[in-house]
């Protein structure tokens, strides 16, 4: 049980940090922020890698494989599309002033 309690501590503390980090973000950035946070939720790719890399069960490996594909779409697509958005915010900053 102590492992679970420890994990819960971490979960709750991280949630508070999350609230603090986001509460002051200007509306201009809400869309990229959402898409960036979305990409970070693809961190589950690490779990997928752990499942797919173990050989105790072929079925679990296949499930892990699907999980990797899903998570990688989320991660790669999410970070790239966010970068595309934020790139546009950057460049016109100079050209117009």
């Amino acid at each position, binding site marked *: 049980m102590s492992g679970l309690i420890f994990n819960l501590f*971490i979960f709750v503390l991280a949630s508070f*940090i999350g609230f603090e980090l986001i509460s002051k973000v200007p509306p201009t*950035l809400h869309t990229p922020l959402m898409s*960036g946070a*979305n990409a*970070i939720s693809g961190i589950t790719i690490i779990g997928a890698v752990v499942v797919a890399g173990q050989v105790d069960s072929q079925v679990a490996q296949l499930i892990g494989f699907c*999980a990797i594909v899903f998570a990688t779409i989320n991660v790669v*697509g999410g970070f790239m599309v966010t970068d595309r958005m934020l790139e546009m915010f950057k460049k016109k900053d100079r050209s117009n002033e």
Partner: protein
Amino acid sequence: MSEFLPSGIQAILPDIIQLVYLVATGIFIVGIKRLGSPDTARSGNQLAALGMLIGLVVTLFDQQIISYEYIIAGIVIGSAIGAFAAKKVEMTAMPEMVAIFNGFGGGASALVAWGEFRRTAPELFAGQEIATIGLSILIGSITFTGSFVAFGKLKGFISGNPITFPAQNIFNAFITIVGLALVGWLTFDPASQLVFWIIFGIALVLGVLTVLPIGGADMPVVISLLNSYSGLAASMAGFVINNNLLIISGALVGAAGLILTNIMCKAMNRTLGNVLFGAFGGDNGDSGSGPAADTDKTVHETTAQDVAIQCAYADKVVITPGYGLAVAQAQHVLKEVVDKLEKKGVEVKYGIHPVAGRMPGHMNVLLAEADVPYDQLYDMEQINPEFKSTDVVLIIGANDVVNPAAKTTQGSPIYGMPILNVDEAERTIVFKRSLSPGFAGIDNALFYEESNQMFFGDAKETLQDLSQALSNL
């Protein structure tokens, strides 16, 4: 991979991995922090991506991992699909894209839990482990199917109107409770495949049933909420495989998603419960979802020449863009018009409602695409006091966010929603294709005001005409 390393390093490898996870966690936090300001946002996003890469690479050294074929194949396939989609997507389609990526993230978390369940003999699970597996399956699967329904609604594959059936809320609440109860059951009887499958099935159905009744206008809130769920699902997956990096990053995203959801609800004066259970927008009987049929009210139509003259001789013009502008890809022409006005000495500002577009802040992204400098963009709170001193407001492809019914008509579905107070300006000019209602499906009283003129047509064509007319002045 770990067997290639010297035994001395292998012995301390688990600690090294944990320390690197700690570094990755720090990078995520700094990254999200930097996403909060326009100047640092891009580097913040890149930092977060770097954190992810570091976490992923060090995980490959995990001693439990001994087979790499599936890992490499999965990463190659997923990267190709993700990169292709991210490169191809139109900026106007960003909400759909976020929704579908979300769905994949949630789905992946459910699969991780399922994989762990398959891999381990049931009698080896402690009760709390099986509970986290059950919750992970529940949240991940709801995110998965819910996101796909949201995607379908935004794309128009599924009607944007709320789809409801009698006693829907009660039914949804009922099967949610059944799902949670079955998770409880599974902790006592981990070997029961049947219970496991029923939980999986319920979660998949629940995702569909909770998003179907939500109207198109509320879709941004739903996507943000699902985003939060996908973070929670990742966090739950972290509980399942006992991985702190997953627990922390998932919790960060979960909390961030909730905050954004809350901000959006405030911008539309709605509560979360209202969004989830209210079935708002479209076919609300009293609001009249069809084209405006009130024949006794008249509107004043105007022409490009007339608009050009009014704007060119104004001191101050405010532009309030909406999704119609984006769909017509008229941002660039708009910029041209604004440049011409500024040359004539007119002060021009953009007033952006927080939910203009299809996602909060979506309009800012779309205008950024057209090289509009972001110091010309004003949030609703900043611009609202200025309308009293504004000569002309150009409302381009926006509707619900300027609808005075939000202030005056009790009982209107948008009553109480903060809007851009364009009716306080001397003159408003609405660029619109017809008098039909917008996304929320309600008529707009502004169109019939004495101080309002309608400039009918496609946003791009009318703006081109206006630009031409300004040159001819």
